[in-house]
């Protein structure tokens, strides 16, 4: 309202007027921090560090400035580059010139090119039938895991922690590579090639290790650019060529990369990769002992059944006339001797179980009790006396100590209740 009153009270100074416009522009959010795309022309970087250019397209243009140090400028930006800027409109009152003050500038050609390459790669791989290739299944227990990831990364410490929770001391080899930036793809490919070598039996044998039987290639979350190496063809090809089961574990649940599509298993995160390939050690141990017990008990039961039948058979044989049965008899004798031999193994197991039982029994043996300061009382015929009513005055008793015996006569009997 103030502006209107000024307008009506007489002519405005032009500077004043221009500044009014500037004020309006600055207050309108449409003109502030706006993303704008266009083509760069008259690109000039001055020794002062400021960069001036014109942003244009077929329908319009405007001059723009990037103040020194305001933002990172991609080297590829030059005359003719397609860019997206985040900029605010300002009016330079002295010259009456509007211009864009740029806070951020990104070449869109590069992004566009990357997306285009990715699209073409996916089509190419699909046409080759790569996505339909049979996925190799993970071993029930991994004897040697190779992890290809960034050294010292949070993803790596997450994976290590999880492995140690599930299977402490599980063998693993961590191959440290760059997982983002220009050299990442090349290093990931070389990392996979190292893991493949470690999965060859002869090389593994020389190193005194079991061959690598699971490979995890992964990294934690990041921007699409950070994860881009896992979208590149050389990485995809290296994964496809790998004979050992390989898990792709990149970023978060929502990130789907080419490496995820070509790997044998796609884990949603690096931690998920461990959950997929490392079982719980205790659970496996328990399962195996359960199988062992079932094997023993079912065999013992079977042999028992057979033994009974055998007894029956031999008694029938004894009763039967010998002629014509010799063959059968020999067969049964053979079986009987095998039964004896194999039963020995089972018997030995039973014996060891019994001896374990004995060990625990001996802990409660009477003599152990006597050693603790108690004594055991027997009558003359050797019965152990436990109650007062088994006694009478004048009776001779024998007291057992841990280290010897003593005879005594009963001179008085007192009932606890009395």
């Amino acid at each position, binding site marked *: 309202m103030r502006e209107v009153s000024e307008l009506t009270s007489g002519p405005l100074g032009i500077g004043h007027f221009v500044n009014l416009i500037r004020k309006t522009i600055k207050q309108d959010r449409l003109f502030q921090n706006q993303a704008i795309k266009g083509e760069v022309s008259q690109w000039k970087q001055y020794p002062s560090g400021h960069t001036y250019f014109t942003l244009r397209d077929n329908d319009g243009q405007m001059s723009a400035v990037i103040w020194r140090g305001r933002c990172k400028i991609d080297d590829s930006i030059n005359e003719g580059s397609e860019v997206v800027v985040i900029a605010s409109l300002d009016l330079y009152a002295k010259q009456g010139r509007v211009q864009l003050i740029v806070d951020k500038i990104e070449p869109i050609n590069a992004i566009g090119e990357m997306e285009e390459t990715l699209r073409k790669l996916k089509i190419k791989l699909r046409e080759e039938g790569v996505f339909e290739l049979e996925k190799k299944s993970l*071993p*029930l*227990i*991994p*004897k*040697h895991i190779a992890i290809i990831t960034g*050294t010292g990364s949070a993803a790596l410490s997450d994976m*290590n922690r999880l492995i140690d929770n599930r*299977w402490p*001391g*599980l*063998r*693993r*080899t*961590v*191959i*440290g*590579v760059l997982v983002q930036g220009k050299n990442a793809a090349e*290093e990931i490919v*070389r*990392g996979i090639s*190292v893991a493949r*070598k*470690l999965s060859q039996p002869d*090389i593994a044998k*020389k*190193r005194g*290790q*079991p061959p690598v039987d699971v490979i995890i290639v992964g990294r934690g979350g990041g921007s699409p650019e950070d994860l881009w190496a896992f979208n590149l063809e050389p990485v995809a090809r290296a994964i496809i060529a790998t004979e050992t089961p390989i898990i792709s574990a990149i970023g978060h649940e929502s990130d789907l990369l080419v490496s995820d599509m070509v790997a044998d298993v796609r884990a949603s995160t690096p931690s998920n990769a461990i959950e997929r390939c490392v079982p719980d*050690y205790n659970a*496996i*141990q328990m399962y*195996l002992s359960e*199988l*062992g017990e*079932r*094997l023993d008990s*079912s*065999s013992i*039961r*079977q*042999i028992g*059944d*057979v033994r009974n039948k*055998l007894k029956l058979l031999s008694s029938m044989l004894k009763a039967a006339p010998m002629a014509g049965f010799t063959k059968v008899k020999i067969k049964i004798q053979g*079986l009987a001797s*095998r*039964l004896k031999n*194999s039963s020995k*193994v*089972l018997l030995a197991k039973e014996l060891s179980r019994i001896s374990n039982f004995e060990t625990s029994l001996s802990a409660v043996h009477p003599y152990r009790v006597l050693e603790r300061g108690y004594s055991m009382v027997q009558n003359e015929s050797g019965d152990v006396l436990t109650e007062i009513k088994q006694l009478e005055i004048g009776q001779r008793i024998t007291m057992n100590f841990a280290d010897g015996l003593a005879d005594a006569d009963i001179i008085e009997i007192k009932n606890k209740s009395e």
Partner: protein
Amino acid sequence: MQISLKLKIKVSDIMSKKKTYDEAVIRLEEIVALLERGGKGLDETLLLYEEGAVLLKQCQEDLKSAEGKLSELRLEDFEKELSKD
């Protein structure tokens, strides 16, 4: 006689060719199921028991063999190491 002959060949196979852990566990589960179902003759029971015992031992050894050290190196160091082999 036919059956026991076939079984003997199977057992000798086991002794000569080491199974992977996965194969061993699957076969062991199969054997336990067969024995629990019952109705097998002595010959077969003993063979199955022997085979099962061998497999169980192998599985337990396999578990132990999965324990080892953690080696962590930069890519180049592994490449250097492997080029020596």
